[in-house]
């Protein structure tokens, strides 16, 4: 197989896909579901329910709080217990809606049948209608960052979309949720892709999958040929060589269509590509065809020491503790709990944090594996420079952040950093490169924003 990949940098961490062959289980309903109001990039959602209100599965509990925002729907039926604060994936207490679960009663508008709805059977689906339904359903990027999907589908007038790329790379170690989704819901994903292509008014689609998932490549190639063969759409499954961070939008665009996205504020659509996660494609199918808002997702619960790691179809708002208990409970000793994978995941200090729209994995790493080694002086080996997928010089950016030289850091393009952690992973001196760069990037972005605000 002639597999492509992105052209600059990259690393290859140990895969540890422990749960590849474990069929997805439906997670049990939680006793209490917690819904953070800020599960997406942009303004937090605004609650539309009050304490004591009865809600069903699929009832809107918070509306979009601005243009870049998304509504939140209840994943459970029951009574609103309170609107309070709770620790979310940021590590801080943030506003949340807490619902006491009673039974499992769904909104009647949601189609719960397994019947596959095809685009042909729904002539009413204009691009505008699709975007509107996606927006109403609160669909956001399911890969982790959580950007509202409808905004990606309506590119700015200066850019023209030419293709939709489905991100099924799953380059992050441990996580298998996307792989299981592809194996179990391939038809739905392809219809989701078709809907995305209609919404973006394009006829070209790509599905990027890394070669460590041959079963998914085979299955989707076959299904694509069946579905799109002879139609006006040209959809190609692109096998990609395993390399981290291939799942980064910009890396994926480079790998699949050989175009480089310029430095921020440029986004992939500036070079003609709309990138959507495979989970998002599935969510779009469910939102548009089944009128089902985004309230459940595929999540991997994994870790080497975990007794029964697995993949779950889980209602959002379920505390991670429930899932970990379903996998045999927290392993003994000290552990590092991550929302997401080991490379980009966010370390948490509480197992009460709920599964949100962007939680693709709950990863538990044992003490000895998680512990960092003592940093040593930089020996200027430039391994980090070679590993950086954005072509930056991490050792320099880290130093500039350390000495607070923001002007120079801005000139050296610190804002282009995608925080993938390749530099820190590859550093033989165990230097905290990304820790420093991340601080500097946040600072420089703040400076740029305040400068723009002054103008």
């Amino acid at each position, binding site marked *: 197989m002639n597999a492509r990949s992105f052209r600059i940098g990259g690393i290859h961490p140990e895969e540890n896909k422990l749960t590849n062959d474990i069929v997805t289980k439906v997670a049990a309903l939680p006793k209490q579901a917690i819904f953070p109001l800020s599960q997406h990039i942009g303004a937090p959602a605004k609650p539309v329910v009050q304490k004591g209100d009865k809600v069903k599965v699929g009832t809107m509990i918070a509306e979009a709080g601005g243009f870049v925002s998304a509504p939140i729907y209840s994943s459970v039926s029951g009574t609103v217990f309170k609107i*309070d*604060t709770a*620790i979310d994936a*940021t*590590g*801080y*207490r943030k506003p949340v809606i807490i619902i006491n679960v009673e039974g499992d009663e769904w909104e009647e508008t949601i189609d719960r049948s397994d019947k596959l709805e095809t685009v042909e059977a729904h002539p009413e689906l204009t691009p505008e209608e699709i975007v509107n339904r996606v927006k109403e359903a609160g669909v956001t990027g399911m890969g982790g960052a959580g950007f509202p999907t409808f905004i990606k589908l309506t590119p700015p007038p200066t850019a023209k979309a030419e293709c939709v790329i489905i991100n099924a790379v799953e380059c992050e170690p441990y996580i298998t949720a996307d792989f299981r989704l592809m194996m179990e819901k391939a038809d739905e994903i392809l219809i989701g892709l078709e809907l995305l292509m209609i919404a973006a008014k394009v006829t070209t689609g790509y599905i990027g999958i890394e070669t460590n998932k041959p079963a998914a490549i085979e299955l989707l190639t076959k299904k694509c040929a069946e579905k799109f063969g002879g139609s006006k759409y040209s959809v190609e499954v692109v096998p990609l060589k395993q390399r981290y961070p291939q799942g980064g939008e910009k890396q994926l665009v480079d790998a699949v269509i050989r175009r480089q996205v310029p430095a921020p504020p440029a986004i992939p659509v500036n070079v003609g590509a709309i990138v959507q996660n495979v989970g998002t494609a599935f969510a779009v199918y469910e939102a548009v065809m089944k009128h089902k808002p985004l309230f459940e997702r595929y999540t991997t619960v994994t870790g080497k020491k975990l007794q029964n790691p697995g993949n779950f179809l889980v209602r959002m708002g379920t505390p991670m503790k429930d899932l970990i208990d379903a996998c045999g409970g927290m392993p003994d000793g*000290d552990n590092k709990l991550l929302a997401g994978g080991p490379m980009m995941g*966010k*370390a*948490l*200090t509480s197992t009460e944090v709920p599964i949100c729209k962007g939680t693709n994995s709950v990863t538990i790493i044992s003490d000895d594996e*998680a*512990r*960092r080694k003592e940093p040593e002086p930089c020996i200027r080996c430039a391994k980090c420079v070679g590993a950086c997928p954005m072509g930056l010089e991490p050792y320099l950016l880290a130093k500039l952040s350390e000495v607070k030289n923001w002007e120079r850091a801005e000139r050296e393009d610190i804002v282009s950093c995608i925080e993938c952690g390749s530099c820190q992973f590859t550093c033989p001196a165990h230097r*905290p490169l990304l*820790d*420093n760069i*991340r*601080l500097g990037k*946040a600072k420089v972005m703040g400076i740029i924003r305040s400068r723009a605000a002054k103008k």
Partner: protein
Amino acid sequence: MNFILIAVIVLGAIGLIAAVVLFVASKKFAVYEDPRIAQVNELLPGANCGGCGFAGCGGMADALVKGADAGSIEGLSCPVGGTDVMGKVADLLGMAIANGEPKVAVVRCNGTCEHRPHIAEYAGLRTCAAIHACGAGETACGFGCLGCGDCVAACQFNAIHLNPETGIPEVDDDKCTSCGACVKACPRGIIELRKKGPKGRRVFVSCVNKDKGPVAMKACAVSCIGCGKCEKECPFGAIAVENNLAYIDPEKCRLCRKCVTVCPKKAIRDVNFPTPPPAPKPKEPKVEEAKA
């Protein structure tokens, strides 16, 4: 012989032309700078700490002279030089002394290891800013001191140090110039510039936790839980509870320390008082003594 003569004449001519050009330029494009700016600059400490709000002493001198021309240098004050320097500057500019009350940096967290149990271990870059970006930190308090000394690193006057026993920074009142560098360095806004107070006596809420009572109580033994007892007790209306957190207005506080006595969490601290705070039944108010 001829060579030398030509060289001398040519060079002489170039020199003459250049001199004329420079002379004309220096007259035509001359920028007038008030000589007082340089004089004021001379008086300022020259630490360029930025405590006055300007990038350095030069900027401050410029602003002082401009202020004097406009009729007032109120609001401009050098925290490092204090009244001494400002007095000299005011004399030079023929203005009244812009006399601010001396201030000092106050660390508003008392969450020592003993008061605030660790619930996690942080293994990354050990600066407060880095930990703050990752979440609440090693304890359950998302507002309290992270103990990595970003403030210590920011201080140019060696006036703030981490107490190795408590893990909380402590300010040396005598060395602190209230330049505010530590205030800016603290990612959690724990440090505040407060009135130094008579004989260094001051009362403040040593907590910035805005969580609701039960949550704050769980995180730390000496957190403010926003119960409002101090607010009710204060005879001068100096205390206000907002977002589950009490704040003592230094302008209104008369240092009676009734709040210190009444606080159930011992979150209000009094410093530099010779005697302990009044017993629960308030006796003679200490207002008079404090004013002296």
